[in-house]
Structures are given as C-alpha cells and as structure tokens.
C-alpha cells in the first residue's frame, strides 16, 4: 500500500515537472502560433544559470531567481531578435529557425561552461525525507517540486482567468486577428508572454537542476516528452497541458513500477524485465496514439 502511494506521488511529481515545460510551450503556441523547439534550451539555460550562481555564491536563494531571470531574459531576447520575425511564417520556418537556435545554444553553453556536467547542491532546508501520514517516507525536495508545480498551476489559472493579461491571452487564443484589430499592443503582449513562457521553462530547469544532470543537451531530452504532453492535452490549452502532464507522469511511472512484476507472473524473469522495459518505454506514445484516435484535438482543446 505504501509502495503504491509512493509511486503515485512519483507520478504526480513527474507530471508537474512536465507541466511547467508544457505550459510555457503551449501558451506560446496558443497565443502566438509559434512552435518553439528551443523551449528545451530555455530549460537548460535556467538550470545552468542556477548552477553557476549557486556555485559562485553558495546561496540557493540567490540561485533560484537567477535561474528564472536568465531564462526569462534569454526568452525575451529570443523573441525580440528571432521569433518576432516568425509570427507570420508557417510552422516549417519556425521549426527550422528554432532548430538552429538549439544548435547555437548547446554549443554556446559548451564554450562557456565546458563539456562537463555541473554540480548542484540541494539546499539544506530541502534535504532529507519526511514521513507522510505515517505510511510513506518521501524526499522533501520532491515534495517541494510538487508544491511549486501545483502553485504555478494555480497561479497560471488565476493569471488567465482573473487578470487583464489573462483576458488578452484568452482573447488571443480564440481569435488572434481580432485582438490585434482592437488595437492591443500585440508586440509588447507577445514579448511579455514569451518571457513568461521562458520563465516557466526556466523554473522547470531550476527545479530539475539538483536531481538531474545539468549538462548540454538536457533540454532536448525532455522536449519530446513535452510535445507528447501538449498533444495529449490539446495544443494551446494550459488546462490541457496540466491534464496531459499528469496523465503522462502517472502512466509512465506506473508502467515502470508495476509492469515488470505483472509480466513476471506470465514469463521468466529476465524476459519479463526486458519486455516490460520495452513496453513501458512505448507506453506514453501508445497513450498519445489512443487519445488521438478518440479525440484528435486532445483531451482539453483550447478552441471549443
């Protein structure tokens, strides 16, 4: 029982990490119609900036905002210099230009920080593990990730549902041309939004820094899974991204945790392990295929 609960928590934790990435990607796509492959690079920039500041100052409290700021600034620059010119282009140009950005950011990071992965310390107050409800012992840092992820989800909901910016976001997602026609300063709105999306990716990078490996190419590792989340949830929908992220996190974790055991009932140990590994690797993609068969627009599409 406690094992099942622990695995469920693991699923949620993976889910909210994916949500942070998917939310930014889907937001940018939903409003601006830009598909940004370099979203993973922003995630990497957040993690690197955080690791560098933490190593330089020894303070997590400084490193945390530094990571967010670096990703945000990189995002705004990216929008201002490149992405801005891509709004009117088709997806193909967007994919390729941002693919070029990936090559650039990865190599630039190599030049600046070297090829070695960076070290990131977990802050002392988040180290160790606690008992939850007297059944499960769970690492504090992972609980913190869940908390930050859920808080961000709520914050985003409030931002979109309650603020003027959110109103423009909703309006923009429904009819981009109309918002522009009504005289809203679309340029500024887009730059701000791109910065927000970049900061969300940076936040994911900052949170992941201490538990993953901060290295060149870390962005592309999560990018594909983020795409799966966005497609399952419905492109352009933040609510969909949340649902999709939790579904992917849960399915992925549960398959890895329980499939080998189930298959071991049916066949010899090593064969079962190998087959289970193969099946669980494809599980998320299967989920995507099924969702698309039933609902081609995703679980919670943005437009109607």
């Amino acid at each position, binding site marked *: 029982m406690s094992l099942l609960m622990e695995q469920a928590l693991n699923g949620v934790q993976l889910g909210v990490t994916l949500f942070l990435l998917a939310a930014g990607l889907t937001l940018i796509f939903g409003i601006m119609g830009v598909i940004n492959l370099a979203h993973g690079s922003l995630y990497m920039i957040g993690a690197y900036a955080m690791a560098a500041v933490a190593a330089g100052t020894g303070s997590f409290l400084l490193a945390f905002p530094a990571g967010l700021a670096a990703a945000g600034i990189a995002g705004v620059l990216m929008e201002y210099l490149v992405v801005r010119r891509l709004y009117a282009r088709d997806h193909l140009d967007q994919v390729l230009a941002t693919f070029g950005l990936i090559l650039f950011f990865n*190599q630039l990071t190599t030049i600046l920080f*070297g090829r070695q992965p*960076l*070290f990131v310390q977990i802050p002392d107050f988040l180290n160790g*593990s606690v008992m939850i409800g007297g059944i499960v012992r769970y690492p504090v840092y992972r609980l913190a990730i869940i908390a930050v992820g859920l808080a961000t989800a709520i914050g985003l909901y409030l931002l979109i549902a309650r603020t003027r910016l959110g109103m423009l976001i909703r309006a923009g997602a429904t009819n981009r041309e109309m918002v522009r026609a009504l005289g809203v300063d679309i340029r500024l709105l887009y730059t701000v939004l791109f910065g927000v999306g970049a900061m969300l990716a940076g936040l994911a990078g900052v949170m992941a820094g201490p*538990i993953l490996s901060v290295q060149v*190419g870390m962005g592309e590792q999560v990018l594909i899974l983020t795409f799966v989340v966005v497609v399952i949830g419905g492109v352009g929908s933040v609510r969909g991204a949340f649902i999709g992220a939790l579904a992917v996190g849960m399915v992925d974790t549960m398959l890895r945790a329980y499939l080998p055991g189930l298959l071991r009932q049916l066949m010899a140990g090593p064969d079962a*392990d190998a087959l289970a590994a193969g099946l669980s690797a494809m599980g998320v993609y299967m989920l995507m295929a099924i969702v698309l068969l039933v609902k081609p627009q995703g679980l919670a599409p943005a437009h109607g």
Partner: protein
Amino acid sequence: MKLKNSISAAALAFFVAGPALAQQPLKIGMVTTLSGPGGYLGQDVRDAFNLAIELEGGKLGGAPVQLLVEDDALKPGQAKEIAERFMKTERIKLLTGIIFSNVAGATVPDILDNGGIYVSPNAGPSNFAGKECHKNYFVVSWQNDTLHESAGQNATNLGYKKAMVLAPNYQAGKDSIAGFKRFFKGEVVGEIYTRLDQTDFAAEMAQIRAAKPDVVFQFHPGGLGIAFMRQYAQAGLLAEVPMVVAAPSLDSVILKAIGDAALGVNISSHWNSDFDNASSKKFVAEFQKKYNRMPTYYASQGYDTALAIAAALKATGGKVDNADAFSAAMRKADFQSVRGSFKFGPNQHPVHDWYSLKVEKGADGQLGIVTKGKVLEAHGDFYAKDCKI
C-alpha cells in the same frame, strides 16, 4: 586549418640533426567525440595524447608526428567519413581516438579493410574481441565487459550476497549486467531496465527500497548516471544500500557533478590518479601542469595509447608502411603503462590488473576517489579464447 589541433612537429624536427631533417612528420589520425554530453571523454583522450607527444618534443618513439583530430559528434556515419578522408586524402595509416562502441562498430571494419591500423583508446566492443579480432586492431583501454566483470568481482570480494542490478535497456546496458553477473557469486534479486531518455528514477528507487538488497550495481553512462546517483542519495538509499559501480559510472568529472551523493560508493577501475608508480605520477603532474585540471581515466588511456604507439614506432624506426612489422612491435607492449603492469592478450586487448576504489572525503574535506586494493590480477577477457590471429 588543422593547425589548431596539430603539433607543429615539422618545426621541431628542423632542429634535429641527421636524416630527421628531411623527414616528413608521420601523420596520425584521431577520430573522436568532442561535441555533446560525451565530449569531455574525447577531449581528455586528445589532450593526454597531445601531452605525450609534447613531452617527447613533438615526437613519438623518436619519430616526428603530427596528430590530426576531428570531431565525430557521436555519429557513426560522420566518423566513417572522417576516417575515409584521413586514409585516402591524407594518406594516414595509423588511426585512433574513437570513444563510443557504436561509432567504433561502424568505423573500425572500414579502417582495417583498407589496410589501416587502429589503436583504441577507449571503446572495446565484444564483436571485435572474439572471432572477429584482427591483427591490425589493438585496444589499449579495456574490453567493455571487463569493466563490469571487475565490478561483479568487487561486490563478491566485499561480501555482498544479494544484489539488485539496473541498467538502461540497450546493448551496452545489457552487456554490463551480463558482465556483472559473470563474476558476482551471490544472488541477483532483481534486474531493472531503465530507459536511455529517462530523467526521473523515483519509481526505480521505490522498487529498490522494497526489494531490500545487500548491494546495488548500476550502469548509467554520463548524465543518466549523475541523475541516478543524486536521486539515489536523495531517496535516502545511500545510507541503507551500498552501491558498486564500474569506472564509467563514476569518473572524476562525474564525481564533481554529483558531490556528496557519491560518498562511499565502491568503484572498480584499472587506473586511478593516486596510483603510486613513476609513469602515472609523471603523467598526473604534467597533465595538471599543462591543462590545469585532474585527468580522468580516459586521459590515462589516451596517454597509454600514445606510449604504446611510441614504443612500436621506436622499434620500426618511425615507419608504419609495413603493417605487419608495426603490429608485431605493438604486440610487445614495450612501454611503461600508467597502470603499472600491462600486456596484450591473444586478441590484442589488454591483460591488466583491476583495483577497487572508493569515494571518500580527504583530510581537506574534498571528495576524492581513493584506491583500496586489487580486485583481479592480470585479467584478460572472456572473448580472447575465440580469437585466432
């Protein structure tokens, strides 16, 4: 344009009296991985190889040499292309440098079929170690399986009875588990295959905790290993279940990235920077002086490769035209390896000692990898018996 990567040996040769004055430097081709996450491996191999050339004043074994280096970006196709260009356009016969087994698998047969000689500073895949071994193919590093065999022996020596093993679900991962099991005398209570694109190992940690093994053996290359180790420590498992790994899972670069989460982990390796022999001491000191960083064991292999080639060049008078003569000279392995004892087995893969190491905090509070003792002595590999040269 390749000047940047090469040692201007020609200039040095100018000052040497006698026939060397007119002698063109011997070109050696290095196809290695410099970009991407695995880039630091190739970087260390290249730098150490260059160091060996520099220490001899632009020569290896008395022959002026020029090292041409190109990045294969971990793409087998690109590596083949570079090797072909080296051999055809630059007329290079002697090649080295490949880091990853899949790149070697694609490139080495081409080099050998075209009459070249290949000396591996890192990858030693099993398919070239047994029946498919070749008289012009040398591995200075290790045969891949032996890394994990030594880890299995290490776990046995440390007295563990129940092991849980984890590796990514791909060829090298499966080989690592097979190698470990070959030398681990206890019981394997669980095998878990992870994914190459996996970043979160929480589900696996919970399974390990539930299975309560005596020891965990895991093989996760590069960034995967860093993530695994961190999450292992954060889950509080480091204190409960000790870990045994092979050298690639915890080199000095990875150790820096993991930090305290690696404290107490057992490693088995063929070289460590604290080795107490003259060759190793000189290498570590000179490497630090030149590059201002600690050499990894990859660097030691690059250095040993250069020394092995130097010894052979000395015997052939700096010539590689006659591949048979060069190979015969290589086979003698007449050089002072930084590992101490070293010779080639019947399949021209190393026969050497394996040591157990441990991550400990030194007197200065810095983490370091400390040599504890021998695990296997004069250990060859499993495939040597199938090789007929």
